[in-house]
């Protein structure tokens, strides 16, 4: 008689096999459920990488109007931060976007919801060092010992500026030989030429008066005038004139469109609050990014007019002065601006914008 101890029925074996296969299948799914939590280092590195890509390669949302132009009152409209000049120029950062991004008015939640993303409330430190800038810009908390990390090599677009000194005044003969009580000096910003130049087509090298800061310095003014009557010269006003030449009307009249009331005068560290103001040696006009965009486009010609009035030393009446700064005069009812100083791509006139090296670090933990 056969002993049946230690035997297994085929029914049990079939059932047990099906059970084991199902168990193995379910067990293999379990690591996938925890894939986001299996290693904190991997997860943090990935978040830092994603944040670095968004900052270095994306211009942000919305694009029009650009997110960096939105005020704190409208910051809810900012959907995503991004520092790149455009999608076509990765790693080339816009100085306006950088300034706005590192603005202290953003909260931790703003950064989390607009650049770091994710459901987990990550802590972060984002820092940018640009060659030639003394301070390192940063946002976020102090880094702990362990964190996810990415480093991006970038360039930041520089700003242009023009200095009209004694050399340029002599070179372009910006001296009036009329004995007059008012002198007018003008600077021509030709948006069409600047934005549609045949040589400088890449936006990262362009002077864009609609988006970039424009800085104009007028120096060596103590050398102007013959000072026979020892006059005091006041900068009466700074007015922006606009004109839009078209094919059928290449010389339309200039129209005053806006005033600018806050130049820096005589190397003062703060701008004046209103005009007129007495000028002895120098004037610096810093037009902030977007200043011209409200009333100009890529077909506009802009003229910045500086009006000077010469007064007697006791300010009681105006007095004529010869050999003062002047390149603009009236002919009938129209302004002759043919000798205006050109803010253009000539490096002899304007210091051209150059790209500055920088390094961007993102740490997430």
């Amino acid at each position, binding site marked *: *008689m*056969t002993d*049946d101890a*230690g*035997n*297994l*029925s*085929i029914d049990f*074996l079939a059932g*047990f096999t099906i059970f*084991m296969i199902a*168990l*193995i299948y379910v*067990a*293999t799914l379990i*690591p*996938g459920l925890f*894939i986001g939590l*299996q*290693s904190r*280092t*991997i997860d943090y*590195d*990935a978040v830092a*990488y994603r944040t*670095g890509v968004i900052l*270095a390669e994306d211009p942000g949302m919305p694009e029009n109007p650009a997110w960096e132009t939105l005020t704190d009152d409208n910051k809810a409209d900012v959907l995503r931060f991004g520092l790149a000049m455009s999608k076509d120029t*990765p*790693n*080339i950062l816009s100085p306006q976007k950088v300034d706005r991004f590192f603005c202290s008015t953003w909260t931790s939640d703003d950064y989390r919801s607009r650049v770091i993303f994710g459901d987990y409330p990550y802590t972060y430190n984002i*820092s*940018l*060092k640009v060659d030639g800038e003394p301070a*390192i810009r*940063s946002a976020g908390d102090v880094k702990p010992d362990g964190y996810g*990390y*990415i*480093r*991006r*090599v*970038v*360039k930041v677009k520089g700003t242009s500026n023009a200095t009209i000194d004694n050399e340029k005044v002599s070179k372009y003969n910006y001296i009036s030989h009329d004995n007059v009580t008012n002198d007018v000096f003008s600077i021509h910003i030709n948006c069409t030429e600047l934005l549609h130049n045949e*040589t*400088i087509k*890449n936006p990262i*090298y*362009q002077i864009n008066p609609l988006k970039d800061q424009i800085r104009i310095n007028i120096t060596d003014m103590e050398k102007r005038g013959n000072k026979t009557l020892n006059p005091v010269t006041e900068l009466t006003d700074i007015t922006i004139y606009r004109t839009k030449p078209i094919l059928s009307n290449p010389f339309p009249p200039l129209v005053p469109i806006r005033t600018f009331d806050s130049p820096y005068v005589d190397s003062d560290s703060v701008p004046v609050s209103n005009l007129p103001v007495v000028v002895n040696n120098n004037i610096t006009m810093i037009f902030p990014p977007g200043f011209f965009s409200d009333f100009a486009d890529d077909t506009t010609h802009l003229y910045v007019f500086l009006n000077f009035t010469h007064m007697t030393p006791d300010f009681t009446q105006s007095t004529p002065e010869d050999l003062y700064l002047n390149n603009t005069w009236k002919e009938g009812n129209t302004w002759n601006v043919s000798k205006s100083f050109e803010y253009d791509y000539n490096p002899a006139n304007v210091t*051209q*914008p*150059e*790209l500055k*090296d920088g*390094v*961007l*670090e993102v740490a997430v933990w």
Partner: protein
Amino acid sequence: MVDDNGQLYTIEGVAAGMIMLMTAYLVLGATSVYTPGDTHISDMQLEQLGTDALRMMNTPVNGTTESTLQEIVENDDANAFNTQFLNFVNSKTGTERDNLHYNATITYYHSDVINNIHTTASLPLASNRNLTGGEHPVRVTEWVIADKQFPGSVNHPRAVLVEVLLWRD
């Protein structure tokens, strides 16, 4: 009498076999998730850094000049490459610096019309340490348009590939 057809003997052997199979399956399945991800992240950081550095070296500072990398290739200036590349890859926002090593070459298309041989050839560009075989370098590249004559062709300007092996100790 009980028929023993359709019976399996030694239940302990079957159960142990099943448990071993299941354990091996779980272990293999689990490790295949962890290992590639971990390696990929550190490689990716170096690749990103090297790619960024070469791209920025190949971006002129203004609209009228050549890029630094273009000048380096045209003048075969190893010192300038060493200084600029290490400055880019080692810079951090804080005061401390990274310590990366690299080996850079230029690869170009070599066309020998007389012997009808058309192939690619490489020239060493610069390095700050030799590869010994124990390193785990990543490879990053950048195409450069260089106005320079390379062996095997009289045509220029031409595109050459700057290849950099980049590693950390």
